[in-house]
């Protein structure tokens, strides 16, 4: 490991930007706010690029011990940063996509009152995310972990005056917290058994341990608990419920946090802890199963959603499921590859959706869209590229990464592959459904008729309303850049180059052993499976085309005939309601009856009130001593005197 004294600057620069905007932004001009936010974020990106330029596959990781933090006996945790190939990939994704989204949100949020607050929070999020990615020990990573949760809460509930937004922010934070609890217990186990949370020390201690094939052991427990944390942060079953509600936040937030970066933190953490997972096959299987099931589950919900952002939210959950499936079968670099391409096309999808919403005056219901292609050609083009990418149509980026995962999954178990293929079909279907509903057919919305568009999500328009219109260039430029990346970004993985690049980070991973030259049979099988995924994606497209472009009456009839099943899917399988009954209601009721009425009112308040009451009662009774009657005073004196005499006699006699 080589020391690098500039590593700390990468997180620190956005923090400075956040601080400046946070403290001084209220009275600054918008230009100043924008300059501060973009320059600090851009500087972080430039620094990341510089680091990347000096890095190659064979480089030793950089590290930096910035300052002492915790020294408690034999336990030690410092502010230390670490940059290896894995963190470099994450770093570039976070800073690059983050910078693009910052630029986009300048245009999107320009007319909002709390503009300075928004940019400050975005920079703050960058700081925490970069801390998470660059941390050299689990504790600093956990700081970043919690911090991105905080930033997510702040940004989801950005329009805090709206009840649903505030509640969504709380829901995100609380559900995340449940996952964090698992993460913390994993950290405690690590401290207890390895005496440290530093990556190098922990992994060095684990390296000589045998894989736990005989059931649950220490590493399996740690792995499972880490997975709980990842499930909370990356919205996997059963802790995914916060992500659809998080769409209450502004669209750039959804793009940055809930598509490209924060939700990928769980995948990064699992990949970083591959040493643990590789020696705990049971935990790894759980990861794979959770990922696979989540992918399928979320995809099925996505086909019945009518809000454009909700479709994308469930799509995110589904794609994250793919990443976990990849990690679960040991293909960590494939998971990271998909993370990278997903950041490109999902970020693009969200930004483009934001552009659509912006262009039709705040409407998010797809049933009220349609026929927008002539009004927003650039948005249509970029969104189309993203849709092709996510559906897995070659040669776009999504195809390469998704196919890599499916191939690696097939080598472990055909069941994973099959479910992955089905999910790919459903993904393609609902994404093209989205495209056709939004851009095809006739415009079903209300904006053209009114003079003023109606803001549903509270953000204002600077330019005049009227017919649907294209977004300004400040918003379109990031779309174009991301579209380019979605087009060409997949070639990074061509010929296993990406895998080779990440190999040192995953040294000891099982997939490196598979790096041997594939046999002819394997190669044919791989190409056959590739063909299957392409045809499945095309099938999904075809189905969407038929249902939503050719025969637009049909979906409604199908929905009616499916009746209850359709309603269940459209209502997200009533999971939120189920959680409300199973968890929320008992906690709230228990809290009300036991903790509030029982403890707070019954014990604490009662103690205070009763002590006051008893003081009053005592004084009420004692005041009879002061009756103004001389003889009663004499009586008291005589009685007291008798007591004193008795006491003295007793003391004397003893």
């Amino acid at each position, binding site marked *: 490991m080589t020391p690098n004294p500039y590593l700390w600057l990468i997180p620190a620069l956005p923090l400075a930007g956040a601080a400046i905007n946070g403290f001084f932004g209220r009275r600054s001009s918008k230009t100043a706010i924008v300059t501060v936010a973009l320059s600090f974020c851009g500087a972080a990106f430039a620094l990341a690029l510089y680091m990347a330029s000096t890095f190659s596959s064979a480089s030793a990781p950089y590290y930096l011990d910035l300052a002492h933090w915790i020294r408690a006996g034999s336990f030690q945790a410092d502010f230390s940063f670490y940059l290896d190939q894995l963190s470099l990939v994450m770093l570039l994704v976070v800073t690059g996509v983050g910078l693009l989204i910052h630029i986009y949100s300048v245009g999107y949020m320009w007319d909002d009152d709390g503009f300075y607050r928004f940019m400050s929070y975005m920079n703050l999020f960058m700081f925490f995310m970069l801390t998470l990615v660059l941390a050299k020990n689990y504790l600093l990573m956990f700081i970043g972990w919690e911090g991105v949760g905080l930033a997510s809460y702040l940004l989801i509930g950005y329009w805090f005056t709206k009840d649903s937004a505030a509640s969504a922010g709380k829901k995100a934070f609380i559900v995340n917290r449940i996952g964090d609890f698992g993460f913390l217990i994993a950290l405690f186990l690590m401290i207890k058994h390895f005496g440290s949370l530093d990556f190098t020390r922990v992994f060095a201690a684990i390296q000589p341990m045998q894989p736990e094939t005989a059931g649950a052991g220490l590493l399996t427990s740690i792995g499972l608990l880490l997975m709980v944390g990842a499930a909370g942060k990356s919205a996997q079953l059963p802790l995914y419920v916060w992500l659809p509600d998080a769409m209450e936040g502004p669209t750039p937030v959804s793009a940055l946090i809930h598509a490209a970066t924060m939700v990928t933190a769980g995948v990064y953490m699992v990949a970083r802890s591959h040493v643990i997972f590789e020696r705990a096959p049971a935990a790894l299987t759980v990861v794979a199963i959770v990922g696979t099931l989540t992918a399928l589950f979320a995809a099925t919900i996505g086909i019945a959603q009518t809000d454009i952002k909700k479709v994308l939210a469930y799509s995110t959950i589904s794609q994250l499921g793919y990443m976990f499936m990849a990690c679960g079968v040991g293909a960590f670099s494939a998971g990271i590859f998909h993370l990278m391409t997903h950041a490109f096309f999902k970020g693009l999808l969200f930004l483009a959706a934001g552009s659509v919403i912006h262009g039709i005056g705040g409407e998010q219901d797809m049933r009220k869209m349609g026929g927008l292609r002539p009004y927003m050609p650039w948005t249509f083009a970029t969104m189309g590229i993203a849709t092709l990418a996510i559906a897995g149509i070659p040669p776009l980026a999504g195809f390469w990464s998704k196919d890599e995962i499916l191939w690696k999954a097939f080598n472990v178990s055909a069941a994973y592959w099959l479910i992955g293929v089905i999910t790919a079909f459903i993904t393609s279907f609902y994404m093209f459904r989205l495209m056709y509903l939004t851009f095809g057919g006739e415009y079903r919305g209300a904006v053209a008729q009114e003079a003023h568009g109606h803001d549903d999500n509270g953000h204002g328009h600077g330019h005049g309303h009227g017919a649907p219109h294209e977004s300004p260039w400040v918003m379109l430029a990031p779309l174009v850049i991301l579209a380019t990346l979605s087009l060409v970004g997949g070639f990074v993985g061509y010929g296993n180059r990406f895998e080779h690049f990440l190999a040192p980070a995953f040294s000891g991973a099982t997939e490196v052993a598979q790096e041997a030259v594939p046999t002819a049979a394997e190669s044919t099988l791989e190409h056959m499976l590739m063909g299957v995924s392409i045809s499945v994606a095309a099938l999904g497209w075809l189905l969407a085309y038929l249902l939503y472009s050719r025969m637009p009456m049909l979906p409604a009839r199908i929905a009616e005939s499916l009746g209850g099943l359709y309603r269940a899917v459209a209502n997200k399988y009533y999971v939120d309601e189920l959680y409300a009954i199973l968890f929320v209601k008992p906690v709230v009721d228990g809290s009300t009856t036991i903790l509030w009425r029982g403890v707070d009112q019954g014990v604490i308040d009662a103690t205070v009130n009763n002590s006051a009451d008893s003081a009053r009662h005592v004084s009420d009774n004692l005041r009879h001593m002061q009756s*103004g*009657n*001389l003889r009663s005073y004499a009586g008291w004196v005589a009685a007291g005197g008798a007591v004193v005499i008795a006491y003295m006699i007793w003391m004397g006699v003893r």
Partner: protein
Amino acid sequence: MVPLTYYLLLSGILFTCGVLGFLIKRNIITIFMSIELMLNGVNLSFVAFAAHWHALSGQVFVFFVMVVAAAEATVGLAIIIAVFRTRETLNVDQVNLLKL
């Protein structure tokens, strides 16, 4: 030859009568006289112990007790006169304006 205890018992009886009078009687002057009775009982006790221990200071102390009793009786009776002027009664139960 009288045992010392006899003197002390007599002193105790006088003192107890004084306290009982203080508690039972309603006339303020009678209550004062009960106080004097108490003091007398104590005086007897002083003198008895002085004789028992052959310490003359016991008898000297009786003087002081008497002086204090005189002073207290003086002031107390003056107060009774002042109270009687306004309240027109010597019944101690009717002088109870200081009750809560």
